[in-house]
């Protein structure tokens, strides 16, 4: 499903640099990515989803090198194939829950909004425990409820690849298990692939494979600048003893 080769990415005017010589994720595989803050986990998801382009190297998703696509084609590809649960939910306050879930259908020509989609959205909201809050605005929801709405939005188009950036980070233990079950069931039902970033080590056992950005035995390496390294050390003392750059 995902095949990355000789990928290099750096944000302009920052010390951050992500360097992935080689990385692959099979169809239907469920992979968790862990690592200290600022190590490039979210950047990896943005690159895989096509939100940003690598400066060098290849990012192939379902056989398509998305780095070579035009903006419009990359967008269309993402809408059709990739679901993304963002770290900070990215819900729109002026839309109610149902409209937030349906929003990708309203703003892109690649998806068609019809009765079936609406019914599926309601069912999905019920499954995730926000079915009774469809008319509410995100500002009137708890953190956990907002996160579940974000997951609904990502799952609704039934993507082949689901990217989850701390998808269960704000949930209580009961809902955490429930949401993860739903994510896994949804992925299994469509034989989709799951790439999830998490800080929650309790959940790692449920994934088929785990990649640690701070682990040099992992499939790729991450380079961070001196400033970021300091942050990481402050955030994660255990990791600070290990060199972060190669």
């Amino acid at each position, binding site marked *: 499903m995902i095949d990355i080769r000789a990928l290099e990415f750096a944000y302009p005017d920052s010390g951050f640099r992500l360097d992935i010589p080689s990385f692959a994720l099979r169809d239907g595989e469920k992979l968790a990515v862990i690592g200290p803050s600022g190590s490039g986990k979210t950047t990896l998801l943005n690159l895989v989803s096509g*939100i940003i382009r690598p400066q060098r190297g290849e990012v192939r998703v379902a056989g398509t090198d998305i780095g070579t696509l035009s*903006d*419009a084609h990359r*967008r*269309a590809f*993402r*809408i059709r194939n990739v679901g*993304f649960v*963002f770290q900070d939910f*990215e819900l*729109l*306050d*002026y*839309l109610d829950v149902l*409209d937030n879930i349906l*929003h*990708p*259908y*309203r*703003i*892109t020509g*690649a998806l068609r*909004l019809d009765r079936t989609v609406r019914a599926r959205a309601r069912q999905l909201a019920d499954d995730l425990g926000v079915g009774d809050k469809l008319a509410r*605005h995100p500002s009137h929801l708890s953190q956990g409820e907002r996160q579940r709405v974000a997951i609904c*939005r990502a799952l609704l188009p039934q993507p082949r690849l689901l990217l989850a950036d701390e998808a269960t980070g704000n949930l209580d233990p009961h809902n955490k298990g429930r949401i993860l079950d739903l994510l896994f069931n949804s992925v299994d039902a469509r034989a989709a692939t799951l790439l999830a970033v998490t800080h929650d080590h309790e959940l790692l056992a449920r994934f088929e494979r785990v990649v640690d950005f701070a682990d040099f035995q992992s499939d790729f390496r991450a380079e961070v600048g001196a400033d970021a390294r300091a942050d990481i050390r402050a955030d994660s003392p255990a990791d600070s003893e290990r060199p972060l750059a190669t």
Partner: protein
Amino acid sequence: MIDSLYVAWRYLRYHWGRSLTLVVCVTLIAVLPLALELLLDESKRQLLARAETTPLVVGAKGSSLDLVMNSLYFGDSVPEPISMAAVDRIADTDLALPVPLYVRFKARGLPIVGTNLDYFDFRGLKIQAGRNLALLGECVLGARAAEALGLGPGDALLSSPETLFDLAGVYPMKMRVVGVLAPTQSADDLAVFVDLKTAWVIQGLVHGHQDLGAVTDPTLVMERTDGNLTATAKLVQYTEITPENINSFHLHGSPADYPITAILALPHDKKSAALLRGRYVAAGDQGEPQQILVPADVIAGLLASIFRIKSVLDAVILVVGTATVLALVLVLALSLRLRAGEIATIFKLGCSRATIARLLGAEIAIILAAAALLTGLLLAVVGHHDEALVRALFIR
């Protein structure tokens, strides 16, 4: 596009305060010049229509505009009075029919027009309900006056005192409403018509009181000399004319000395009009205290001034409108910066830049459409009430 409109509508509805402010700003920019144009057109129509059908006005020298506005539109500014002798003077020339007007008093805010039956014939006023003036103390209401006062034939109407603090001033008089005029879409609709003598009764010049010859109460008589009685303030003066007391009403002195505010001079033909004007102009060089006016000329001068002012107003509105539009553009530009996070989100969700532009365009379109709707409604209201608004704002 429908989805863009829907999302834009949800955004505007959620931020309703901000949206409403924008709609009101845009509406005001549009409504002000258009409503002003509408009202000025209507005022021009009203002023000109009445002025062009009134050939000549004679009154005291002074403000020609006040004289015309008072005698044609029953305006609040009362010109210096002239005497009834001026009516006889015009009648004696045999050049025009003089129609006297005494427009000084009010009844519940509406002008009381003292005149004679020639006025009704000249203006083509028809009685819609009841009958025309016949007796002292009667009044006939214009159509809108009757509607505004809620009165009809058989009801009574009190004239308003000129001032509450002058004990010797004009007292309220109870008038009987005997008729209501058919609507004319003119100043006549909002007037209370009385006979000239009734107007003088209101002023106290014609009055009725107890028969002094028959009084026996010594406190009613201040002085008794040969053939003359001077009454005290205790004497009852009638403030309502009834069949029982109507015969006690009388005037002192010569009717030729009684006041009026203007005369509508209705010449028999153009030549008569020119001759009559010529006589007043010629007399003007010899200290003539009265003036003769062609109302259409006075109103044309007034309109020229109004439209000069309007062009200045248009320029002011243009500048204010431009400044407001620029401010709105700035607000929109700043709101884009404030909404950078939201725009980034929908971009991440797969929205193209064109779609983002379409969403913003839809928001602007909805605001403009709402403003256009509101502008249309306000203009419809102004258009519906333009006649009354013109009378309230411009023609008093």
